[in-house]
C-alpha cells in the first residue's frame, strides 16, 4: 500500500511529535519530581507507594530551610559573584575578540589553539596556586577572589564565543562606514556592536549561569559563613544529619530559579549566539 504524500507527512509529524513528547517527558521528569517534592511535607515524601502530586501545597520545607540558613544572604553572594564575573569576562573579551578578528596580527591561529589548550587545564590543578596567590595578597576568603577564580573558566569560554561571533560579521561593514566618514570608534559602536548584541547577550547569560552554578571554587576559597554562595551553602547544610530531604529539595528549587528564569527570558538569543559560536 503506497501512502500518498500528505499521509506520509502526517505520519511523520505524528512520529516526531510522539518521540519528542516521550523524550521531553523523560528528561523533565527529574525536575518535575524535584519541584513537586519540595512542596510535599516530609512525611509525604517518605510515603510508600510514593505519591506524585502533593496532597496539599506544603511550605514547611521552605520555612525550615529559612530557619536553618540565611537564604537571602547566600543568594546575594551568588548574585554578586555571578554578575561581577560575567561583566568582567565580557568586558575583557569584547575588545580582545574584536582585535583578533579585525587586525592582522601574527599568531592569530595560535591564539585560538591556546584558548582550547588553556581549557584543558583542570580547575583542580589551578586551585591551590590560586588560593596561595590570593592568600599572599590578603584576598583569600573574599568574594573578589571568587570572582577572579571564576574567570578561569568563564574567560576562555566567553572569548571563544565572542571571537566566533565577531568573525561572522563582515569587515566590509566597518570599511563602508569609515569610508563614509565615520571614525573607527563610531563604526564599531554604532554598527558592529549592535549587530553583535545577540552573541554578547548569549555569552553573558552562559557565563552568568556557569558562575552561579559553581561549587568547586566556592568550596575551596570561601571559609566564612557570611560569604558562602548558595550552591556551597546548600551542599554544606545537606550534610547535617537531621535535615529532611524536603528541606534539601526546597533549597534545590530555590537555587535553580535564577538560571531558569534568566534562560526563559532570553531563549532566542541563546541558540542564535551559541549556534554561531560552534562553526
Amino acid at each position: 500500500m503506497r501512502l500518498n504524500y500528505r499521509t506520509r507527512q502526517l505520519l511523520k509529524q505524528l512520529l516526531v511529535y510522539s518521540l519528542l513528547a516521550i523524550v521531553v517527558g523523560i528528561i523533565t521528569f527529574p525536575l518535575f519530581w524535584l519541584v513537586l517534592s519540595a512542596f510535599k511535607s516530609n512525611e509525604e515524601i517518605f510515603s510508600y507507594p510514593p505519591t506524585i502530586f502533593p496532597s496539599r501545597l506544603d511550605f514547611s520545607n521552605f520555612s525550615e530551610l529559612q530557619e536553618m540558613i540565611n537564604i537571602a544572604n547566600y543568594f546575594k553572594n551568588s548574585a554578586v559573584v555571578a554578575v561581577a564575573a560575567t561583566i568582567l569576562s565580557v568586558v575583557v573579551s569584547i575588545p580582545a575578540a574584536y582585535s583578533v578578528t579585525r587586525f592582522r596580527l601574527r599568531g592569530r591561529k595560535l591564539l585560538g589553539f591556546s584558548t582550547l589548550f588553556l581549557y584543558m587545564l583542570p580547575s583542580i590543578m589551578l586551585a591551590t596556586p590560586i588560593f596561595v596567590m590570593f592568600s599572599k595578597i590578603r584576598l583569600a576568603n573574599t568574594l573578589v577572589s571568587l570572582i577572579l577564580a571564576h574567570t578561569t573558566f568563564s574567560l576562555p569560554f566567553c572569548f571563544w564565543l565572542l571571537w566566533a561571533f565577531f568573525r561572522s560579521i563582515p569587515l566590509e561593514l566597518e570599511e563602508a562606514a569609515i569610508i563614509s566618514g565615520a571614525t573607527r570608534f563610531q563604526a564599531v559602536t554604532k554598527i558592529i556592536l549592535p549587530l553583535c548584541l545577540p552573541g554578547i547577550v548569549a555569552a553573558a547569560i552562559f557565563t552568568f549561569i556557569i558562575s552561579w552554578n559553581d561549587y568547586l571554587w566556592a568550596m575551596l576559597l570561601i571559609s566564612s559563613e557570611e560569604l558562602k554562595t548558595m550552591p556551597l551553602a546548600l551542599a554544606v547544610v545537606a550534610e547535617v544529619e537531621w535535615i529532611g530531604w524536603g528541606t534539601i529539595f526546597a533549597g534545590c528549587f530555590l537555587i535553580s530559579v535564577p538560571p531558569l528564569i534568566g534562560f526563559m527570558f532570553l531563549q532566542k538569543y541563546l541558540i542564535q549566539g551559541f549556534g554561531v559560536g560552534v562553526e
Partner: protein
Amino acid sequence: MTSKKTPILLLLPLIVTIFSIIIYPAISAIFSSFTNQELLSENYRIIGLENYFRLIGSDVFISSFTNGVIFAIGITFISLVFGMGIALLLNEPIKGRSIASGLLLFPYLIPTVAAAFMFKWIFHDVYGIMNYGLVSLGLIDGPRAWLGSPDIAMFSSIIVGVWRFFPFVVISILARLQNIPQYLYEAAKVEGANIWQRFKYVTLPQLSNVLVIVILFRFIWMFNNFDLIWLLTRGGPAFATQHLPILTYLQIFWRYQLGLGSATATIMFLTLILLSIIYLKIYKFKG
C-alpha cells in the same frame, strides 16, 4: 587613523588576566609536582619525577584514572547519540518545537548541586522513584542500590552526567543542522536516496566539524569535572566512582600532599593534550 598599538592594547586585558589567573598558577602547579611540598608549608625539596613514578605504580591512581576515562567516554558517547537524535527531532518543523527545545535545555542550567540531590533521591534504594517505577513496570525484579553499590554506581553517575550535559550536544548540533542548505537534500532525493542514505551522505558530513568539536569539548569537560561525582557519591562507594579530579582534591586538601596532588593534576592535563593531539590528527587524516 588607528594607531599601530591599538590591536595589542585591546588584547592586553585578556592576556594579562589569562597570564595571572591561568598560566601562572598552572606553571606553579607543574613546578610543585616536582617537589615534595606539603600544603601550607614553605619548605620543600625538589624530588624530580618521584611523584610521577609513585602515582603510576599506585593502584588507587590507576583505578581513578580508569574511572575518569570510563566516565568521560561513557557520557560523551551516550550524550552524542542521544543528543544527535534529539537534534534531528527538533530540526523538524513542528509546532511546539521551541517549547520542547527550551524544556530540554533545563538540565544544563540548574546547578550541579540541585541535580545531584535530585538524582540521589530518585536513585534512593528504598524511597526512590527509580526503583519503584522499574519494579512496578516489571523491568527489574527488586530494588537496586543505584548509587550505593560499587558495580552500578559508575553507571548511575554516567546517567546523571548525560542528563546534565546532553543539552550542549543538542544545541551545537541543532544550530549546525539548521544551516545545512536544503538543496543538498533535494539533490540527494533526486538521486533516489532514502532517509538513512540522506543522513549518511548529506547530514553527517555537514555535521562533521561540529561533531569533532563537541566530542572533544565534552570529553575534556567530563574528564576534568569535579562537582558531579563529588556531590553525587563523593567518589564512593569504596572508590568505585573516584576519578582523578577527586583524587587530586583528596591528596592536596585532605592529605596535604601538594606535590603529589599537583602531579596527579598535571597527568590529567597531559593526558588531555595527548588525546586531543591524537584525536585531531585522526580527524585531519580522515578529512
